[in-house]
């Protein structure tokens, strides 16, 4: 069993280190970048990675590393608010339906089921294209709403499980209000299950934002995000600038990998 344990902490540790590392670099990128991300330099265009340009330069001579630092910030900003809004609403709905039960529970869960049956990325693409209003807040609202059902489901299951326990009946006998029980008695105990769900939400949000912007329905043309940069980079793949796409894509992979390892580790620690 000792072997198993070492592997479990290994996932968590690597995930934590990777996530902290990526988030730190991205946060630094909001205040300082090695070069001005928008500065064009004709003398240094389409360079391969080197010590002066860690990820090389693009077709206009802009430093790709600086641009990635900035663009990943947009991606992370979107992911943060999608998870914040989606999980807050989802946990709230799950708590209500799980704790109170009854007809509201049945109806809301049926709606959640039919929404989750459809691939959320497909729904997001269609809705964003129909709205036709590119920008990070549009992406945030659409994705946050589409993410609600998955959080609601996890939260509901936990509330249903915990409300049957004795200490909850006791709290009820003592006259605690349903709101108090839901927020103060159940929520802290549901947290070990909600936390991995929130972490995996980051994973999905980064992936969704990148897909949306890659297809051109996500952020607007003036906001650089990882997905938009990758679709830009894709045009220069064939003309011999593979570094651009590889570095941007690699950054997306590292971000997602960090969150998924962290979620995996959190889930395993719970057991």
């Amino acid at each position: 069993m000792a072997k198993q344990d070492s592997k479990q902490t290994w996932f968590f540790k690597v995930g934590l280190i990777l996530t902290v590392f990526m988030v730190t670099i991205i946060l630094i990128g909001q205040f300082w970048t090695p070069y001005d991300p928008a500065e064009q330099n004709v003398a240094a265009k389409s360079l391969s990675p080197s010590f002066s340009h860690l990820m090389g330069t693009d077709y206009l001579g802009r430093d790709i590393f600086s641009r990635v630092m900035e663009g990943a910030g947009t991606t992370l900003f979107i992911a943060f608010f999608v998870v914040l809004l989606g999980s807050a609403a989802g946990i709230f709905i799950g708590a209500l339906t799980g704790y109170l039960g009854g007809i509201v529970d049945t109806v809301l869960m049926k709606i959640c089921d039919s929404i989750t049956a459809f691939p959320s990325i497909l729904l997001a693409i269609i809705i964003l294209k129909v709205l036709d209003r590119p920008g990070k807040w549009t992406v945030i609202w659409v994705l946050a709403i589409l993410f609600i059902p998955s959080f609601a489901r996890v939260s509901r299951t936990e509330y249903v499980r915990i409300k049957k326990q004795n200490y909850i009946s006791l709290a009820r006998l003592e006259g605690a209000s349903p709101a108090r029980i839901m927020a103060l008695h159940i929520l802290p105990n549901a947290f070990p299950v909600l936390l991995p769900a929130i972490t995996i939400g980051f994973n999905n949000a980064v992936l969704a934002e990148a897909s949306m912007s890659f297809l051109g329905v996500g952020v607007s043309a003036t906001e650089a995000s990882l997905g938009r940069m990758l679709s830009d980079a894709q045009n220069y793949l064939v003309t011999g600038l593979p570094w651009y796409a590889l570095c941007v894509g690699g950054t997306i992979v590292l971000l997602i990998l960090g969150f998924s390892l962290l979620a995996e580790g959190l889930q395993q620690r719970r057991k």
Partner: protein
Amino acid sequence: MRYVLKKLAVMLATLLVLSFLSFAAFEMIGDPVTTILGTNATPEAVAELRAELGLDRSLFVRYFEWLGRFVTGDFGTSYIYRLPVKGMLGEKLVNTLVLTLMGFALAVVISIPLGVVSARNEGRWLDRFLTVFNQIVMAIPSFFVAILLMVVFGLVLRLFTPGTFVSYKDSPGAFLIYMLFPAISIALPRVAMTEKMLRTSILEEMQKNYVRTAYARGMSRRTAMKAHALKNAMLPVITFLAVGAAEMLAGSIVIEQIFSVPGIGRLLMVSIGQRDVPVVEAIIMILAVWVMLVHFISEILSEAFDPRMRS
């Protein structure tokens, strides 16, 4: 049988609601008249075109007219191109479906043996390697897999030329070879997820009492897994694969744009942009039918694997 009929009724009701909702959505965001005539058109010209396309009538009249035609298999006429929607979809739909099905087949064929191998070797180096490898593969979005495949196989090894799509009508062989790379792109993340799911599911089943009984009857771990645990372990995997089949259709819509495969994905994007409601409506219905169909099949299959679920 009654169960199947009930399921079908729910599916039809969902399709009805969905088709009306998407119809109503376009009512709110505007019609294609400005797209066709431009913003400088005279009110008379706008009114004339509206009447010609039948847009001057109420939403409900138009919806039920569309529905009446749709159930008889008439998908209507494109507002923009004035062509039958069916003809516009034809080959594109085949391309997208072939891509999705190839991806699905690859995912099943690769992930299930790997999951079994990983579970059988639990804790050994092969299992550990697969687990770590899986976790990394899961983090690579399919559109980046597509780009990596293009760089490695297209630009470095020159096994195929990106962007030179061959229609199945011209050369079925070349078509399938070209489609292999986009199919791998949509399958790979799913392979990793399904493998992990199956491994976990098998190992959970192996802890159960009936497997202990099998050991007591003198069965080896390997036989117990093959004869008893695997069948039960497949249940959650079947449901997961159904979700996978639905996600893969969504994935192929993204991937076909990278590999310049003329599929329904780009047609959907263009048609939404042009407010070409009949085309959009037809594609949304096709996507919805696909999603429901795979869930329906997975439920039937689950029952075949586990008769207890027949209730």
